[in-house]
């Protein structure tokens, strides 16, 4: 039974509202869980975040524990993270008390490991990850699909074998080593593709008052400022990260696409299409591929979430200032405030990506219902 367009739209809307309403509860639950896990450490252990080496005098650790309230009951500390704390100011006989901080007051706190407010950290790092995602997602997903289709269509022929070997090598190649080899060859050797996000000369231009940062995506801002040289420089810095990501992640997409295509090509309706005299290209493109893409949509959603959350190894090797390296550093140094902010942010991205993927399902396959 087919559903009317009006009914489909209504059920989709209900679905989206339900998912969005669930988001805050989900995120609070996750942060509470992480918070409680970290509270299992003693206050002295948690104070290590603030001490990079041996304390310089005997009072340091007590001072830190007191200053940051690390000895307070867990619920008090969690409450402080949610709603902030009060600060008293006295001037003569006048005393004023004000509440500062708290995520419900729009303050994500201060990141000790990044030496800046968490909001500033996210505002700087997320555009970098988003930009890398924008330029990676097409090569990563489309390249994987293309190779998967070739493998399936040329099943058990030399092309299929080559694609499979190619995928296996990519999947098994340590990304760290692959990235470094590319860097040595194409940067240290040839001098073509440097690490980082932008060259120093271009950075000087970007930081100048004449350059307007509309989106914080350097390539787009460069075009909006009519600076093709900066656009090309930013692209130059993304070449190696994109190649590395693409090569290493193609394997997964091509394997999923290939097996899904093989299954689809065995379906009766494909045989019927061929029997009707349709060209093989039409059969593949118009009949087989759309149906084979369902699992690839799921995979694509995960890929985008992974890219947006940051890819630690890629960011480390290419010194690319994305989300992943900052999150990893925070986690390794028990920077509770920063870890919680990343959990919130990544959780939000994950939930939104799942909603988008589910909606895409409904459009790709009319049999899928969201109610």
């Amino acid at each position: 039974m087919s559903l009317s367009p009006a009914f489909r739209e209504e059920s989709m809307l209900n679905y989206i509202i339900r998912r969005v309403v669930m988001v805050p509860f989900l995120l609070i639950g996750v942060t509470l869980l992480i918070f409680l896990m970290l509270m299992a450490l003693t206050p002295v252990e948690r104070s290590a975040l603030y001490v990079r080496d041996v304390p310089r005098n005997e009072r340091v650790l007590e001072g830190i524990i007191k200053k940051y309230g690390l000895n307070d009951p867990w619920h008090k500390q969690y409450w402080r993270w949610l709603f902030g704390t009060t600060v008293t100011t006295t001037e003569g006989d006048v005393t004023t008390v004000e509440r500062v901080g708290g995520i419900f007051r729009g303050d994500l706190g201060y990141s000790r490991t990044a030496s800046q407010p968490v909001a500033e950290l996210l505002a700087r790092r997320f555009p970098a990850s988003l930009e890398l995602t924008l330029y990676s997602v097409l090569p990563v997903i489309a390249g994987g699909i293309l190779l998967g289709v070739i493998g399936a269509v040329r099943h058990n022929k030399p092309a299929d074998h080559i694609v499979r070997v190619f995928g296996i090598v990519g999947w098994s190649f340590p990304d760290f080593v692959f990235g470094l080899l590319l860097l040595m060859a194409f940067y240290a050797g040839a001098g073509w593709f440097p690490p980082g996000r932008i060259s120093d000369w271009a950075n000087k231009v970007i930081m100048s008052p004449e350059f307007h940062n509309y989106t914080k995506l350097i390539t787009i801002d460069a075009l909006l400022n009519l600076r093709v040289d900066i656009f090309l420089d930013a692209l130059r810095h993304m070449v190696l990260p994109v190649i590395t990501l693409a090569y290493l992640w193609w394997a997964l997409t091509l394997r999923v696409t290939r097996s899904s295509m093989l299954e689809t090509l065995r379906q009766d309706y494909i045989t019927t299409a061929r029997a009707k005299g349709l060209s093989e290209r039409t059969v593949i493109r118009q009949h087989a591929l759309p149906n084979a893409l369902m699992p690839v949509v799921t995979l694509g959603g995960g890929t985008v979430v992974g890219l947006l959350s940051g890819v630690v190894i890629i960011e480390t090797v290419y010194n690319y200032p994305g989300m992943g390296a900052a999150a990893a550093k925070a986690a390794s140094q028990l920077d509770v405030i920063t870890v919680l902010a990343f959990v919130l942010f990544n959780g939000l991205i994950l939930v939104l990506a799942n909603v988008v993927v589910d909606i895409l399902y409904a459009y790709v396959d009319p049999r899928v219902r969201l109610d």
Partner: protein
Amino acid sequence: MFKKLLWPVIGLLIVASMVLSACGTPTPEATKVIETKEVKFNAATPNTMVFVSIGENIDTLDPAWNYESDGDAVILNVYDQLVTYKGASATEFVPALATGWNVSADGKTYTFDIRKGVKFHDGADLTPEDVAYSFRRGVLQGGTNSPQWLYTEPFFGIGIYDVAELIDPEGGLDDDAEALKEAASAKLAEACQMVLDAVEFDNAAGTVTFNLATPWGPFLATIAQSWGSILDKDWAIKNGAWDGDCATWQNYYGVTSETSPLRDKVNGTGPYKLDSWTPGEEKILVINPNWWRTEPVDAGIAAKPTIERIVLKGVSEWGTRFAMLQAGDADVVSVPRGNISQVDPLVGEFCEYSLDTASFDCTVKSEQPLRLFRGAPDVSRTDVFMTFDLNVEGGNPYVGSGQLDGNGIPPDFFNDIHIRKAFNYCFDFDAYIQDALAGEAVQVSGPLIPGMIGYDNDGPKYAFDMDKCKEELKLAWDGQVWEKGFRLQVAYNTGNVTRQTITQILQNNFATIDGKFRLEIIALPWPTYLAEFRNSRLPVAVSGWIEDLHDPHNWAQPFLIGTYAGRQNMPKEMWDMFNELVMAGVAETDNAKRAEIYKHITQVDYENAIAIRGAVVTTRSYWQRWMGGYYYNPIYGWDSHYYTLTKQ
């Protein structure tokens, strides 16, 4: 067309991937091919210098709060201090923002003449009031985790670590901003007045006077550091720092590095201005063409900056830093000791450090593009600490059975000097220097480091001697140790390979004597390690110290009466003995007399075998050969004053 090209491209990629796979991980051998065939070195940007370190870890740019070398790299170049070191000398000072100074006969009053005509980066004039404000504000801002304790001790007396202790000497108010605000206003005003009295100024006379509670040998060394930087009072107040009024100082007390209003704002008088700071990524400095200095701090050193732009970049991955060095995009990079074999083939000029002349002697050996500076002693050291009286409250997992039964140790195991001496004799210093420090280190004598007042190159030190180790073990605990053996755990913090190697050397040597002398190595995460060490729960801990000041007090104090003595739970009579000696050393202002006191301290430290004193690493630094103008002063290390450098 596309179809025709597709297969060759895929084929090529596969072949390329196979070749790359065969290369494996980037070993030195694999890198050598690239070095010899592909690398090009061009000084493409002579006006910009790029330093690439292991990470960008600045906590704050507030000079009163900064306590990290990363922050120093910026602060020492954008701010000036009253005095500075005379070039490479680690013991002589020359005027900076002060044109001269006088010290009273009792060593408790320092009066500085403040330089006229100096301008801050924003164009304001420097005054003696700015100087006094900078010190007063720092002390009143407080913070036991800030460097201000280096002032509160000379200003108010030994053992005062924070301004809040002027109100509550027990330290109950330390770092507790809200509790301090509740203190009686008379007490608050009195504390503030003490700070004002400690640092006085006279704008008309152009002087600033420091009134110390006690004579303080390292006072000039203290104010020559980044925490002696001079701020513009009006600018600081405008940006939210203390308003200069004793009625309000409590509102500015106990800020954290994140809430300090000057965390990311800079306005100094130095040779460079801060252009930008991107936390976690880089700092950029630009030249200050109006810098006041006209005379060099020492002969042969430039007086004015010439490089227009300094980029201080943090890149955590070694391979990336190495690639930047090869590409010529980095002028200097941090090279981990484990990777020196990759870089050494690129060195064409070798500069060896001489302790006698405190300078480098350079020899050109090939056309390779790098210059290597090596042999200069570092200002940090790793030692092995034995806890005299272990904390076993609530159980202690590091002491086995907790008894001298061959399966553990009693809490006061290391109270016996023979055990401490046995550990010293059983430690193979040469193996340590070879295995952990690539053969580039010097075993020290006592708690000080070479090149310092009172350090004696021929002073007493333990040598590896298994026979003596056995003798001491036989004497320990009236022979019970030799009869029954022991079992304990030796801890280091996870990931620290140097400390791990030290524990392995000890473990192997004791096991060689007899299997009943069991040392079990345990790696603890940094937070746990810190907590356990602090609570005196680790029988043996390996830890290090980086100096704040290049002065013997900064080594004698933490090792004999301060941080480490506390963790070792030193017996009171021993602590009292060292306290008397250390206090005599810091109060002496005559360098010759100080030297004698510290030599005596070294002797006593040796006789009591307080710890296994390790070795000071001799450093290496790799620079592009187009760089010039560098001099090495141990207190600044490689994060030097950039104004002396040149780039061709």
